[in-house]
């Protein structure tokens, strides 16, 4: 669309749709990262900060939280795909 009737050649042949797709993915990944950090911070790290370093319990908790988070996302993703395929 960008090279129709504008008389301007495309710069290095980039495809706008692809760029948008990649932008969307980056946004999704960023959102996922933010979400995961927020959720696990809330669950695992208690409010009173006496020390700047994570201790072993908190570190384990964060590890497990992130692992569960991504497993959940994977499960939900597969379920949604199944439902979409079933609907189609």
């Amino acid at each position, binding site marked *: 669309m960008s090279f129709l009737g504008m008389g301007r050649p495309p710069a290095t042949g980039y495809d706008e749709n692809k760029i948008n797709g990649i932008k969307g993915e980056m946004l999704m990944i960023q959102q996922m990262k933010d979400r995961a950090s927020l959720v696990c911070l809330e669950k695992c790290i208690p409010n009173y900060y006496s*020390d700047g*370093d*994570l*201790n*072993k*319990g908190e*570190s*384990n908790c*964060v*590890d*497990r*939280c*992130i*692992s*569960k988070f991504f497993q959940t996302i994977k499960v939900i993703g597969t379920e949604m795909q199944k439902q979409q395929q079933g609907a189609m």
Partner: protein
Amino acid sequence: MSTAPSKSTLPPRNPVLVALGIPRLRLPGRNMSIFLGTVLGISSMIYYDRKNRRANRQKWKDRVSYLAEETLQPNGMPRKVTVYVAPPPGDHLDVTIGHFTQYVKPVLTAAAIDWELVEAKRQGDIRHQVAEQIRKERRGEGDSRDELMRAVTDGLKYDTEGGVICVGRGAYKEYLHGLNEGWLGPLEMPASPQLEKPVDEVRGLLQSGDDVTQTAVEASKAADAGVVTSQVAEANKSIEEDDGEEKKDTKPAVPKPYISQADYGSAPTPPELAQITSFQPIVYIPLPHILGFLNTPIRTYRFFTKRELADRCGRLAASVALSQSRPFIPRIDLAQGMEEENEWPKKWKETALEKGSEWMQDFVVDDRIAERLRVYQLPPIEDENKPTGPAAIKE
């Protein structure tokens, strides 16, 4: 019809109660008393047991919780303990896993120790896996990471202490046998008439064994320390599902031991063994489990006294967390869990003896292995309820 007595023979009532309309209070009769007595009696026994079980568990958790407050660098990995679980004879794996979750796991989480749960579905699973892991190390293939994993995990600082927990006598026996087999047995499967099977089946055997250990080794080295249940369980399940597709009877059997108990003494000491001064310490967690209708009184008693079990298992788990160990003494340690073995169903034991099953074979540990083994045990503590910290452990 006839006039009732005008005055009742009962004592006069409090006018306040009369005004409020509250009926005359009575004590319950004989039947109601029996009913209430039984219900309240049983409930209070259960309540008392649960309360003390929680208190005992909390006592051991508090004893080790100072470990969770040590700092961990972002590239540091927590200590990882391997837990071997096998189903008790005649029952399912849930029993053992439930036992572990109730009594051992709380102490491990309180101490911020990560664990890898290795489940066994059949006799010999654990033994084979342990032996295969050792053989891989001996051959030098211990490091099975690919380039990406290597790049990711090389920067991480792993805790090298480790530790092994065997829940139940079956897992304990299998682990020790696997240890002996791995270090004293040959590196390749010996060709013997019992092991000669059609090629596909043999490949299936080795493949299933390898798959299981591959994922076990990867799981133990994975950066994903947060994964609680090991991927071995998934691999096991997937293998069994694949086989279930063909037929239930053609599940690949567990490979036989590469070396039998009788040959332990005559096996040469491999040079790799001579370099090792000690293995990971182990601990046996008792798993009291008794079946049978006539055993109902015993089972009832155990139902009401789980607090003792919580104390014992909590203490053993705390010894793992605090890394207090003593040398392995065959005379004492091979007999650990005899009371559990005596409770195994008699019929099961008889059939196992006839078939030569692994759990009923001689329980032998070679001297060369025994001198390198240690067993987790806490020294006697004066007052278990005293709050502790790192200093109090040096007793």
